[in-house]
């Protein structure tokens, strides 16, 4: 039996297949009395969209859905389940498939963390997975049942998420992965379970960096006594860094964005220093944009007032294979506004103020294409390509919503997010597109509106925007609890008289 770390930490693939799904249909009246007390009511009338658009719930009862995609014939794919946000309860890791005929079935898979994204491309389904020490990108052929792991080297096993894959007009596959650490250093401030599952997980830079040696002191919750330990940047929890220590940059780093051929070969690192590039979208001109979520104001490396942001990955314009130096977007030492984490505007009102970790930071690739309110939690997004729907060329972004008061003590952060916005990436401005009558999740005021938008994608005909609603996640100053079977897929369509 293998005992070396690299062999032990290698993913070994997983089983996958199709199964029937227990479904029923519901009238509008029946949606007023659902058997899930966490979300007993779904009512499109409680959702606000611009005049001239209609909203309808398409799928109700989803369990921790993460992404949506469409086949060319209009078949809908929704990834859901696994061990997600928070890590429990685990719900069946699967992709729900709704055919144009209305038939609904599931692609089920025996993999712990579950699919975090789903993308239909050239007749096959591409999915990104967390779980284990490496993220994976897999390709699944629905006709033959063949599953192929395309990418399996990117260091994961911590807090943040895979991004993509998406496919550009150039036919290349673009994907990303966030940082292992929540705050730039592996700390128990994230879920302690990560330290048990992956004690050796850590961030990896995309370029050589020299460390300041500023370690973070914290308690080790795994120990039976109150052990205090020091942890450095780009190190596993409990491993300190030395001043002047050089950490080698690697192709397969994290907090990064790459591209490759569709089969996962010829991987090219475009950018790093992006804390959580969960949302990725490319416009018709081939310009790549990624979402990124802000630092949290808590714990042993606490940072305040860091805006959520959308980065323009300019290296994606360069010819494939020509990027020799990846662009750096600031993690773990800069906030979204380009200011250092120890700048007075980012000093926390609770927790230990952050110190800088990198002595020789690369040149910053900012500013951001768009800055959003802290803790809005921008997630997956899509460019509108249709004059029929309206707002063609604008970027529609799902905002999962704040985790305050868990990750911020500021009252103004409590209702940030919980909506879909449309962003003009040229001007760096945005307008709300879909939200509740009162800002915040519907469950906060017993309405039938939206909870936490996690993804939004346009249908292949361009006529409708589908918004995937993660469902109910209740947050307190000490924890977050998410309820399964409360997710919803919403469909927004421009009324006929307006769409020609």
């Amino acid at each position: 039996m293998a005992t070396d770390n690299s062999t032990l930490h290698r993913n070994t693939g997983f089983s996958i297949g199709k199964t029937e799904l227990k479904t029923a249909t519901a009238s509008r009246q029946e949606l007023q009395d659902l058997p899930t007390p966490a979300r007993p009511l779904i009512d499109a009338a409680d959702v606000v969209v611009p005049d001239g658009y209609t909203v309808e719930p398409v799928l109700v009862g989803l369990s921790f859905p993460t992404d949506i995609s469409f086949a060319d014939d209009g078949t809908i794919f929704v990834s859901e389940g696994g061990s997600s946000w928070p890590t429990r309860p685990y719900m069946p890791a699967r992709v729900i498939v709704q055919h144009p005929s209305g038939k609904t079935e599931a692609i089920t898979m025996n993999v712990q963390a579950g699919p975090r994204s789903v993308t239909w491309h050239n007749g096959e389904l591409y999915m990104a997975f967390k779980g284990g020490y490496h993220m994976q990108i897999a390709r699944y052929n629905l006709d033959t049942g063949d599953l192929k792991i395309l990418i399996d080297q990117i260091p994961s096993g911590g807090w943040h998420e895979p991004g993509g894959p998406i496919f550009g007009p150039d036919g290349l596959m673009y994907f990303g992965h966030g940082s292992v650490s929540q705050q730039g250093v592996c700390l128990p401030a994230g879920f302690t379970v990560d330290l048990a599952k992956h004690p050796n997980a850590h961030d990896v830079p995309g370029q050589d960096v020299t460390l300041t040696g500023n370690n973070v002191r914290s308690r080790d919750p795994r120990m039976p006594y109150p052990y205090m330990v020091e942890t450095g940047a780009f190190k596993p929890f409990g491993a300190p860094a030395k001043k002047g220590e050089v950490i080698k940059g690697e192709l397969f780093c994290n907090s990064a964005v790459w591209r490759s051929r569709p089969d996962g070969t010829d991987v090219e690192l475009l950018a790093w220093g992006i804390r959580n590039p969960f949302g990725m979208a490319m416009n018709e001109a081939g310009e790549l944009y990624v979402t990124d979520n802000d630092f949290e104001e808590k714990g042993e490396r606490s940072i305040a007032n860091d805006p959520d942001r959308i980065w323009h990955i300019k290296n994606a314009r360069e010819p494939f294979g020509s990027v020799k130096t990846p662009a750096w977007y600031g993690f773990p030492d800069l906030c979204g506004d380009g200011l250092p984490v120890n700048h007075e505007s980012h000093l926390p009102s609770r927790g230990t103020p952050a110190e800088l970790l990198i002595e020789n930071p690369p040149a910053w690739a900012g500013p951001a294409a768009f800055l959003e309110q802290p803790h809005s939690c921008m997630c997956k997004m899509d460019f509108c390509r249709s004059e029929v729907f309206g707002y063609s060329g604008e970027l529609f972004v799902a905002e999962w919503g704040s985790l305050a008061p868990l990750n911020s003590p500021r009252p103004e952060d409590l209702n940030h997010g919980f909506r879909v916005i449309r962003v003009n990436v040229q001007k760096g401005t945005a307008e709300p597109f879909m939200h509740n009558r009162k800002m915040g999740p519907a469950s906060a005021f017993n309405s039938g509106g939206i909870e936490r938008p996690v993804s939004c994608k346009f249908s292949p005909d361009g006529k409708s925007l589908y918004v995937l609603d993660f469902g109910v996640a209740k947050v307190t100053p000490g924890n977050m609890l998410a309820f399964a079977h409360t997710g919803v897929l919403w469909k927004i369509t421009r009324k006929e008289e307006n769409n020609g």
Partner: protein
Amino acid sequence: MDNTKPTILIELDPETRSKHLNRAKAWFDNVLLTQGSCRQLVEDTVEKIEEPHIKQYLAEMAEQEKNHEAKARELFSVIGREPSDIRQLLGTVTGKARQALGDFIAVAGGAEVPWQDLHQVYLSNYNSMGAFAVAEQLGLALGFPAIVDVTFPVIAEKSTSQLLLQECVLEMCSMSILYKEDF
């Protein structure tokens, strides 16, 4: 709203829902069984301990355990089900049986009563805490906040009790095993 295309419910049809709730009920019977066993063990162990502080800790814990057992019963009403009478009885019987087993292990391992009883309480509390924690996850999986409202405070109290029991077991093991004295 476009009424020509009805909304699809995923696993929320009455048949699937009822099946899931019946399966949750079966686990809640387990919660009641393990909690009944734990309560019985704590109550009986209080009587065997003389040391005033540990006795006080356990006496307070015994009061909590009665409340935890009531909370275990509440779980059934949240999902519209009734507990199984036989499983409740089994809990009390299991508590007694564990004491007998504990006495046997105490003799074989060279430990004295009441340390072995304390050790059994330690294991039993861990077992019932785990049963409540699973019930909490089922509540989250079924979309029932009321189940979480019942279980979360119980798990928090049992987690504190677990630290206390561990401390008492580790503190007093030398008295029991090396000095062969009760306390």
